[in-house]
């Protein structure tokens, strides 16, 4: 029989035990009667021989091995009964715990979905990402790099322990069918879907023979794009569409939610069909590579083989690959700085949960003290200490679990709002769901918190001095619990201060950052990526004309003040970094300073209202026939020339790729916070160089045009201009489209969104902590004061004034508040360090932050203690003395 079978047959087994004992007694007494004893005497002797039947039955039950379960069940029912008897206490405790666990569970659901869940591919632990790594001086700056296409092809040829797939993220304009639209294109090698082991929803993957230049153009649609642009019709399969003036046959449709490297592409096309020259250049590393470790191979073997290929390539192609290696690392979800944000928030919410636990613990402790006599009675009747501790713990675990269940129910409603509140797009948002991991977490958290807040009261179960406790009666003044109670209050205050100060730090940071000058006038500026009509891109002259036409058309619109083209504008991801020097005598690579390169048309300064400090900005004379010119910002001017006048001086930009890489400085402009309000001051590269679109060599025009945006200064609200701008710029073929349309105000505000979001949540947590801590203080003081009522009665009978009674109580809480504040300040300093490391733009903690936040807590805590103090001062001495 299993223990649970025995448990289920408990009643039957009890019956049988009874029967067995009865049989024994009857047999024995029958024999004694046969020996000549009277029936009554025989029964007495038989019973004597056997010993106390109840005690023996107990021992038999122990022998059965279901004892712990029966006890547990008994404890559980007892706990439920105790909670039902005090619905007020139960409700407060449950609510506190539910709040704590639900907030923690919500945060953990996000952590789980975004950080912990494996990637949604079969056997995700056998997938690796392949990086090219430069062993050169700039390795740190550029970090892990993608892979050259030719290197990728060599990998697939030489390597046996991995199966590879490559993707190149790109863009294209779809002009047929439907409305022209600029789409996210992923050019992939054949076998991407089979490497990831993701079956296509419809159709097939690319064939190896389709992965060649000149092969028939084929495409696979991303699920969302298929739904959006083709209304999810299955006859989209085998139909055609026009992408960048090429007609593609649609051969497949990707399954829902398919993402690679965190991106869901609109359309997939064969990478091998791309004729771009940079794909044939081993110095360019545009391709992202993923691979699956073949069955029978280990990660270590794959890495070793890959390193070997890297070395082989380095020897074969000395010019391009000499200082490069290839590495394979387990493929991980790409989540960026969301990781630290999430852990930070989980930590903060954990503090709230701890405060909640301290609160419930002090409530339980107060009850444990008032139940001391009951417990002492049980000890006197033979209960063991372990048994009593278990019983107390059962009660707190029942509380913890019920709080946890309530918490999970609440969390269920909290997850979606939090995800939608997340600044920008939360990566892997679709993976954020309540699952077994979350439930397990919530269960663990509630049981652990049950143990945490239950252990102190349980260990107080009286064991020594049973007799004294029993005699002392209700009048016992629980001296020992006072210290524990103070400990709870102190830890609540400490934790609340950590959260309050953190919120204060974030608030100050946000205020400071928001007041920073971005360097441009962000009001009334619209920026939009512009995809020229694909037909014009083949011919540089046509492309130049097309851009002129775009600027002219946009300028004609009513409400437009000025327009410029620009490749990278502030507060957006994406930049072009180039090393520069002030003479032809270049130092070694690691000594070269870097600057951010921005390619613009002449009106950019007007559009962004960047102040011109010296010289001039570009004009129509800066064309291909004249000396290449640049304009630098004041940071570069200061770094490179100090107090000298940079106008007329020259800069060498070795990797520019122009016929001559020498540029003349014609102007100096104000610094622009390119990296956003929060990030710019700490950015590695801050110096800026502007160079004119009109001097861009023909070979650059195509690639640059793919990245170009237009920036428009308006005199009307910029959002009102989007629709007219779109229709005006459609072009003759109607396939010229705007995408990624933003106002500069939005971008500036988005650059602080992480800080704002953290402030919001820390503010909420700090508020919760404050409320919980205050209710905790109130509860403890009310209880402690209640215990002192007879004493206060005596004092008042002897002539104490109400004010001195109030002071008596307040003094007690002031002591706790003082210690809490001291500990909290120390803890907050440590927490401040963590924040400073994890959040961009955080300043070191300031005294004034403490000065602003701590009084809030002290006042609230004093208010919470004032209520019981005042009540104590109104004690009627006669009633107080008669109590008990």
């Amino acid at each position: 029989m299993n223990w649970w079978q025995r448990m289920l047959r408990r009643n039957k087994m009890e019956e049988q035990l009874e029967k067995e004992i009865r049989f024994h007694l009857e047999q024995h007494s029958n024999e004694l009667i046969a020996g000549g004893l009277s029936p009554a005497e025989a029964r007495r002797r038989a019973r004597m021989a056997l010993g106390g039947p109840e005690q023996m039955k107990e021992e038999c039950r122990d022998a059965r091995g279901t004892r712990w379960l029966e006890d547990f069940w008994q404890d559980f029912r007892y706990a439920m009964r105790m909670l039902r008897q005090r619905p007020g206490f139960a409700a407060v405790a449950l609510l506190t715990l539910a709040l704590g666990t639900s907030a923690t569970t919500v945060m953990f659901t996000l952590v789980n979905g975004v950080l912990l869940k494996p990637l949604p591919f079969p056997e995700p632990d056998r997938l690796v990402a392949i990086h090219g790594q430069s062993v050169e001086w700039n390795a740190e700056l550029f970090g892990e790099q993608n892979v050259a296409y030719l290197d990728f092809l060599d990998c697939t040829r030489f390597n046996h322990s991995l199966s590879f797939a490559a993707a190149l993220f790109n863009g294209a304009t779809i002009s047929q069918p439907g409305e022209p639209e600029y789409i996210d294109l992923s050019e992939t090698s054949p076998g991407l879907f089979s490497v990831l082991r993701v079956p296509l929803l419809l159709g097939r993957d690319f064939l190896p023979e389709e992965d060649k230049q000149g092969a028939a153009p084929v495409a696979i649609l991303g699920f969302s794009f298929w739904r959006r642009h083709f209304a999810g019709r299955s006859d989209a399969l085998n139909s055609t569409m026009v992408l960048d003036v090429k007609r593609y046959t649609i051969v497949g449709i990707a399954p829902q939610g398919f993402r690679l490297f965190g991106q869901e592409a609109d359309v997939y096309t064969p990478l091998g069909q791309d004729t771009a020259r940079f794909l044939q250049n081993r110095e360019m590393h545009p391709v992202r590579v993923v691979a699956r470790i073949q069955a029978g191979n280990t990660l270590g073997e794959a890495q070793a083989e890959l390193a070997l290929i890297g070395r082989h390539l380095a020897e074969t192609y000395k010019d391009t690959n000499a200082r490069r290696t290839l590495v394979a690392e387990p493929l991980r979800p790409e989540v960026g700085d969301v990781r630290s944000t999430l852990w930070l928030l989980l930590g903060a919410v954990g503090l709230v949960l701890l405060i909640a636990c301290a609160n419930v613990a002090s409530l339980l402790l107060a009850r444990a003290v008032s139940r001391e006599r009951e417990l002492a009675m049980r000890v006197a009747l033979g209960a063991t200490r372990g048994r009593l501790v278990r019983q107390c713990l059962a009660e707190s675990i029942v509380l913890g679990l019920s709080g946890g269940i309530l918490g999970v129910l609440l969390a269920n409603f909290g997850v979606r709002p939090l995800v939608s509140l997340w600044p920008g797009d939360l990566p892997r948002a679709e993976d954020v769901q309540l699952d077994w991991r979350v439930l397990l977490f919530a269960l663990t958290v509630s049981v652990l918190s049950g143990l945490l807040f239950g252990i102190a009261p349980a260990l107080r179960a009286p064991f020594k001095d049973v007799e004294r406790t029993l005699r002392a009666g209700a009048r016992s003044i629980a001296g020992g619990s006072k210290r524990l109670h103070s400990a709870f209050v102190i830890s609540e205050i400490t934790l609340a201060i950590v959260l309050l100060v953190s919120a204060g730090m974030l608030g100050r940071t946000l205020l400071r950052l928001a007041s920073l000058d971005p360097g441009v006038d962000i009001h009334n500026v619209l920026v939009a990526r512009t995809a020229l009509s694909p037909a014009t891109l083949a011919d540089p002259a046509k492309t130049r004309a097309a851009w002129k036409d775009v600027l002219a058309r946009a300028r004609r619109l009513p409400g437009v003040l000025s327009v410029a083209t620009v490749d990278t504008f502030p507060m957006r991801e994406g930049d072009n970094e180039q090393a520069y020097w002030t003479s032809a005598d270049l130092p070694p690579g690691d000594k070269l300073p870097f600057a951010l390169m921005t390619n613009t048309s002449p009106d950019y300064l007007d559009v962004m209202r960047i102040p011109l400090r010296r010289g001039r900005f570009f004009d129509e004379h800066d064309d291909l026939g004249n000396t290449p010119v640049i304009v630098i910002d004041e940071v570069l001017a200061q770094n490179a020339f100090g107090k000298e006048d940079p106008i007329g001086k020259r800069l060498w930009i070795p990797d520019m790729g122009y016929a001559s890489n020498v540029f003349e400085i014609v102007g100096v402009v104000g610094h622009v916070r390119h990296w956003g309000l929060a990030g710019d001051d700490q950015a590695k590269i801050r110096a800026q160089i502007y160079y004119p679109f009109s001097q861009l060599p023909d070979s650059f025009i195509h690639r640059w045009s793919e990245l170009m945006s237009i920036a428009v200064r308006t005199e009307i609200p910029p959002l009102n201009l989007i629709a007219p701008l779109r229709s005006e710029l459609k072009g003759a073929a109607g396939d010229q489209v705007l995408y990624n349309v933003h106002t500069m105000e939005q971008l500036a505000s988005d650059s602080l969104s992480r800080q704002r979001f953290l402030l919001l949540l820390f503010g909420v947590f700090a508020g919760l902590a404050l409320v919980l801590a205050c209710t905790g203080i109130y509860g403890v003081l009310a209880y402690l004061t209640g215990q002192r009522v007879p004493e206060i009665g005596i004092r008042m009978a002897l002539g104490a004034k109400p004010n001195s009674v109030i002071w008596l109580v307040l003094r007690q809480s002031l002591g706790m508040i003082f210690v809490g504040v001291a500990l909290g300040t120390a803890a907050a300093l440590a927490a401040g360090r963590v924040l400073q490391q994890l959040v961009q733009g955080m300043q070191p903690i300031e005294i004034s932050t403490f000065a602003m936040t701590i009084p809030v807590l002290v006042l609230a805590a004093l208010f919470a203690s004032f209520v019981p103090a005042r009540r104590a001062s109104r004690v009627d001495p006669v009633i107080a003395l008669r109590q008990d």
Partner: protein
Amino acid sequence: MNPKSDLPQGTLDLLILKVVALGPVHGYAIAQRLEQVSKHVVQVPQGSLYPALHRLENRGLLASDWKDTETGREAKFYRLTGKGRAQLETEAASWERLTEAVALILKLSEGGAE
């Protein structure tokens, strides 16, 4: 002096197993058999007999059935399981080794240890 001696720790289980090995038997009979066979030297505390039986049954060394006695009363009869028989053999063997060793030591003549 009480002529009856208390059972050494752990031997009750061994004795019960041995008695039950002779054939299915109910609890009262076990108690009686133990007293008779040991010529009343061994005092079996009846109060600890049943907990021991239940413990052995729980460990799978004994099994039980409800059967009628010769007098037609229904009683719980214990019998040895395969596992119980194996346990009895090992325990009996180790008991014999122990008693032999103890006897040898007791037979040492005084001063003979030198």
